[in-house]
Structures are given as C-alpha cells and as structure tokens.
C-alpha cells in the first residue's frame, strides 16, 4: 500500500480524482460548496503524500501548498459571509496579493528593480486576466469547471515539462480534484455552485502561484503562461447548446485541454525535451 501511495500517478491523479468525486457526490445535499470541500480534502491528502508532513524549511513550494489549501478552505466556507459584506472582490485581490508577497518577496528582493517590476506586472496581469475571465463563467458550472480543469492541467504539465515535478504534481493533483468535482456535477447536475466570486479564488490563486513559481524556480518560460491565461476566456466562448451535461462538460473543457496540452508540449520541446536522464 505504501509503495502504491508513493507513485506520482496515484498521488497526483487517481487519488485526488476519486476523493473529490466521492466527496462531491456525498456532500452535495449538505452544502452548496460541496465541490470546494471535496477539492480541499483531495488536495490536502495529495499534498501530504507529495510533500510529507514536514513544513520546515518553509520553502516557497510549502507556502504554496498552505495557501492553496487555505484558499480552497476559505472559498468553501465564506461565500455567504462575504457576499453579504460585499467584500468578495477586495478579499480575492488581497488574498492573491498577500500570497504573492509571502511566497516570492524574499527571492524577488535579490533581483534588479526592472526585473522586480516586470515580474510584478506579469503576475498582476495574469491574476486579473484569470479573475475577469472566471467572472464570465461563474454562473455556468460546465464552463467554470472546464476552465479550471484545463488551466490547472496546463500549469501542472507545463511545470513538469519545464523542470519541477514537485510543482507539476501539485498542479496535476488540483486538476484531478477539479476533474472529480466536475464529474460529480455531470452525474448529478447539482450545480453546487454558490455563484459567488470568492469561489473562484482557488482557480485564480493556484495557477497564479504555481505559474509564477515555475517561472522563478523552475525555468518555465514566462510566455508559456500567456496561452494558459486565456483558457477561462476560451471556455466562456464555446457554444454549449446541448441538453446533455456530459456533452456540455466535454465541449466546455475542450479548448482548455487543447491549450494546456499544446502549451506543455511546446515547453517540453523548447526545454530540450530530454527524458530518462
């Protein structure tokens, strides 16, 4: 059993997918954010298997794990509270900004001013593109999850293709968890979507942190994030004139999957495409 749980495909694909699916199905009558609780549980378990229990030294990757887990927890817990207080957008923006500062400030501080400005501008542009795009799809579960699935898969595969299996595995675990929650929606049709902006926080924050970390720590070309940033927009544009939820899910996720795979292949080719070293 231990050997099975050591396998990357179990840690980052099978396990988070199954756990998210089962929990999203099981919890859907209890809460409108069942899919977020399911993703939180699936990601937490995956992260424990990938990283272990230790948090020292508190590396950027470990901070990212804590922040993504925290974002999923907050997004699952707070929609009602924040909606009443009209705080969702500032809360999401502030969460992302503080997260970027906590994870990357020590590294960025050693850089030249121009580099810092370019990284900050790129990260903010990436975050706002994602946030605005997800706002377009929030009312439609097929588009929302389709965009999330493609984006997380793209970030995970691109990080792996660049240089970091660790960052890649985290992105892929999230994509698998998203896939599990997505399938639960396809099976039941329970929207499970609180239709509150804050539920998109994990979908914005996780690609943002994993993407910037892959650029800074793992030599992912920064321009690889550009096509990935447009995945939610692409998911919002495809026509979904089908009765079948399965067909809608398939079509809504197709552009994201194509962009994700193409980007990862491009990164893999441009970074030398060597394997088996």
């Amino acid at each position, binding site marked *: 059993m231990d050997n099975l749980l050591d396998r990357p495909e179990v840690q980052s694909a099978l396990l988070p997918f199954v756990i998210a699916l089962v929990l999203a199905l099981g919890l859907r009558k209890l809460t409108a954010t069942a899919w977020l609780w399911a993703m939180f549980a699936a990601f937490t378990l995956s992260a424990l298997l990938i990283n272990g229990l230790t948090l*020292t030294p508190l590396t950027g990757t470990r901070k990212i794990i804590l922040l993504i887990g925290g974002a999923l927890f907050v997004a699952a817990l707070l929609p009602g509270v924040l909606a009443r207080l009209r705080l969702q957008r500032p809360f999401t923006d502030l969460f992302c900004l503080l997260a970027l500062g906590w994870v990357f400030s020590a590294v960025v501080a050693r850089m030249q001013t121009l580099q810092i400005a370019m990284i900050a501008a790129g990260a903010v542009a990436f975050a706002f593109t994602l946030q605005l795009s997800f706002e377009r799809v929030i009312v439609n579960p097929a588009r929302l999850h389709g965009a999330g699935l493609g984006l997380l898969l793209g970030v995970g595969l691109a990080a792996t293709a660049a240089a970091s299996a660790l960052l890649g595995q985290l992105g892929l675990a999230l994509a698998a968890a998203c896939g599990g929650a997505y399938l639960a929606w396809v099976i039941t049709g329970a929207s499970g979507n609180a239709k509150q902006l804050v539920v998109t926080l994990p979908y914005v924050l996780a690609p943002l942190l994993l993407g910037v970390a892959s650029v800074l*720590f793992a030599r992912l070309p920064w321009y690889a994030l550009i096509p990935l940033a447009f995945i939610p927009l692409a998911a919002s544009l495809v026509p979904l004139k089908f009765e079948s939820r399965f067909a809608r899910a398939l079509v809504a996720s197709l552009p994201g999957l194509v962009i994700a795979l193409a980007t990862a292949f491009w990164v893999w080719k441009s970074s030398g495409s060597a394997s088996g070293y």
Partner: protein
Amino acid sequence: MKKYLILAALAAAPLNPALASDYTIDPTHTYVSFAINHLGFSTMRGKFDRQSGSMQFDPDAKKASVTIEIDAASIDTGHEKRDAHLSSPDFLNAVEYPTISFKSTGVTWNGAKLATVSGDLTMLGVSKPVTLQVTSMNCAEHPFNKKWTCGFDATGSIKRTDFGVNYGVPAIGEVLDLQIEVEAARN
C-alpha cells in the same frame, strides 16, 4: 624599550590572523563533487562549478578551520536538462536557497596533517553536522606563484532527506557521497 616592543610583537604573533596563516581558497583548484545512486543501476556523479571560501591553518598549534560557500545553481552533471531539474524545488531549490555552505567546527590531526574536519553543512536553510575524512594533505610553496599553498582532499557522506530533499527517494539514492578537493593560498 625597542626590545620590549619586539618581544610584545612576537608574543602577539600567533593571535594575529594574518600571521596565523589565513588562506583564501583557489576556486579554480577547488572541487566539490558528489555521487548518488541512480535507480539502483549505477552511480551518478556531479559537481559544482562555483565555490569560494577561506581557511585558517596552523599545524604547529594544531588549529585549523575551513569555510566554503558553494553556488547551488552551478551544479553540473554534464546534462543541461538534468541540471535544471536538480536546481529546481525538487532538489536544491537554488533560486530560494542560492548558497550551500560548510563551516568547520572542529578538526582532528594525524601528526602534522589533518585527519578529519567536522562542521555544519547548510543546505536549503537546514544545518546539519558533517564529518569529512581527510585522505591527503600537503603544504608547500607554490612552484609558479611562490605563495605558500595548502591543499587537501576529503570525503564524507550526507543523507539528503536530513535537509528536506525528499524528491525521488528511494529510487534516487538518499545517501550522497561527497568528495571535496581544496587548494588555498596563504594571504
């Protein structure tokens, strides 16, 4: 009065770092290399291309200390893609933790030569004690630049998981064998 001044200067001489033999490590003749098991098949070797440091060395007083700083991003296994992976957060996390350092805390002697060098190895912000076995050592005037030069070869081993480098264990070995060759010229 002059006699007392000379005596005072002589008495203070061993305490003066310059006279007590401070050395600067020659990065072009200093090598930090490692070997690690690869998937149970073979031993993979690599080295670091950039390091600096200093030594204090006084065989008469049986005192010595060594400080070496290694640029983590200079890892070189002869394979660019693998080096990028080894520099990433999976292994050395070289962007967040750019320096690996060794600072000696004690030495033992075998006659006039060093036998072991114990110290703290700091990697990824984690410091652990390491003891290096000195396998050879020599001090002499450098034949070309005429500076007094000391050099030594040392070996040791560490468990990378002690430093939080867990990726790929046990497929990629947990124990890292270190080989260090240092050459340093007296200041």
